[in-house]
């Protein structure tokens, strides 16, 4: 157990590096990594947030996730590039293919992060890491950080120490020196809210968290508390998962180019998202039991409601009806900019348990299936609901890359 060697390979400012490398290949004479530049969403459509930044842009105090508008205020000569997900998919796939030369045990954790089990590798681990890092730089034209540790958590923490183009190790005997002095929010799984909670009781570093009494943290924060306490002590023992992990929830959201203030428009948006999530569910042959809707107002205040159904469903109509009911329950007539629907408690649809109290219409299943087949054959816009005609709202809303399976981040290691 103790002699596992896990690598965590993390692309340095992934989207930006990939854009820069691609542009150089296509004959551009500036390397975006050396000038203040960002990859950001379309401002016209109000998707304008910073997705990735170059290191010179970081010096202006630009942060990932802030709006493109405020980034431009900080640095007027900033170069803004729109994202090209097809390039990122290609680059990410090339990196994974490259890594298979070193180990067959590879977990694609997200589009730019990979875990690799090097326990039974041929080379000394440091030599292998050097070869991987230099190989990717030479062959694929971008830099990575590699963290080496005895488990996935410590490997991930190590790859985050200093960037770019570096290799760090974090073994059990190094935890005290390398991890414990870090601020507590640097620990995996600790977000803004947990940080506030911990800070309120005087816990500011990972070391302080690690030294707490196990029973004390359990009585205070319950199970998630134990998890972060274990993480702070470097305890984590999940395998590098070769196969794709099971889907836990499916959701789509959209930020509209305009604010929605009438119920008719909101209904159409919800219907459009329902179409998308319904299609995705049916594609994976699963059904969902819990439907949740969340809204963001034009003042960036968000709220959500959810409902558990008696019969798991994958029908667009049922999803839409439930979403609409939830929407009516919580909407206070304020103008809305962002809608999302998310489905969870997923079950495989080999069989379903029916209920006395809810209608179940088998014809709907058949209808959805036929519509999916038509769309698959003739394109997504071949059959649309007439409600969307001349409405200016897309009949099917959401999705980063429609066809390909885009590996998203998850909070499970």
């Amino acid at each position, binding site marked *: 157990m103790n002699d596992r060697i896990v690598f965590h390979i993390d692309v340095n400012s992934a989207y930006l590096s*990939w854009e820069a*490398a*691609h542009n150089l*290949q296509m004959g551009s004479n500036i390397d975006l990594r050396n000038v203040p530049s960002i990859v950001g969403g379309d401002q016209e459509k109000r998707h304008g947030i910073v997705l990735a930044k170059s290191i010179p842009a970081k010096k202006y105090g630009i942060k990932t996730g802030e709006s493109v508008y405020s980034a431009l205020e900080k640095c007027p000569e900033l170069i803004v590039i729109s994202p090209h997900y097809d390039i990122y998919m*290609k*680059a990410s796939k090339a990196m994974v293919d490259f890594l298979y030369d070193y180990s067959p045990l590879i977990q694609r954790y997200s589009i730019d992060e990979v875990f690799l089990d090097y326990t039974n590798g041929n080379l000394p681990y440091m030599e292998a890491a050097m070869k991987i890092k230099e190989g990717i730089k030479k062959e*694929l*034209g971008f830099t990575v950080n590699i963290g080496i540790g005895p488990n996935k958590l410590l490997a991930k923490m190590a790859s985050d120490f200093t960037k770019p183009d570096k290799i760090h190790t974090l073994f059990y005997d190094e935890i005290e020196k390398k991890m414990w002095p870090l601020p507590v929010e640097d620990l995996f799984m600790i977000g803004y809210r947990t940080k506030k909670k911990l800070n309120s009781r005087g816990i500011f570093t990972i070391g302080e968290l690690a030294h707490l009494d196990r029973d004390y943290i359990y009585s205070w924060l319950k199970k998630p508390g134990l998890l972060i306490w274990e993480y702070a002590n470097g305890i984590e023992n999940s395998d590098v998962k070769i196969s794709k992990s099971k889907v836990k929830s499916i959701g789509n959201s959209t930020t509209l180019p305009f604010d929605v203030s009438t119920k008719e428009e909101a209904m159409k948006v919800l219907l459009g998202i329902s179409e998308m999530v319904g299609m995705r569910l049916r594609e994976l042959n699963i059904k969902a039991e819990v439907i949740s809707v969340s809204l963001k107002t034009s003042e960036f205040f968000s709220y959500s409601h959810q409902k558990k159904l008696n019969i798991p469903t994958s029908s667009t109509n049922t999803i839409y009806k439930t979403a609409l009911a939830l929407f009516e329950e919580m909407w206070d007539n304020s103008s809305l900019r962002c809608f999302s629907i998310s489905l969870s408690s997923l079950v495989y649809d080999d069989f379903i348990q029916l209920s006395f109290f809810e209608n179940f219409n088998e014809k709907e299943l058949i209808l959805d299936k036929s519509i999916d087949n038509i769309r698959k054959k003739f394109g997504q816009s071949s059959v649309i609901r007439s409600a969307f005609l001349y409405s200016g709202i897309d009949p099917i809303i959401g999705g980063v890359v429609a066809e390909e399976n885009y590996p998203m981040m998850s909070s499970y290691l």
Partner: protein
Amino acid sequence: MKIIMKPIEMIAWFNNTNYPIPLRFRVETENKTNIVIKIDKIVFKEMQKIAGNRMIVYRCEGIISGLQRTFELKYEIDTCKWYLFKM
């Protein structure tokens, strides 16, 4: 050599080895006329995988308006497009 990166029309020979062999290409010049350049010699070729995008780079020699010149061509495998990369 300067970077040009201009799409070109190409006649190439695809044989049973790994790489297509460029023979002749037509490119539009600055004064909007087309010129045809014959590739006399391929000095070297190299497969590039920058950001996962596969391109074959050819360093070639040929005669352009009476002068022997060296230039580089690129073939993008995913799109099957040829470019005059540098001259």
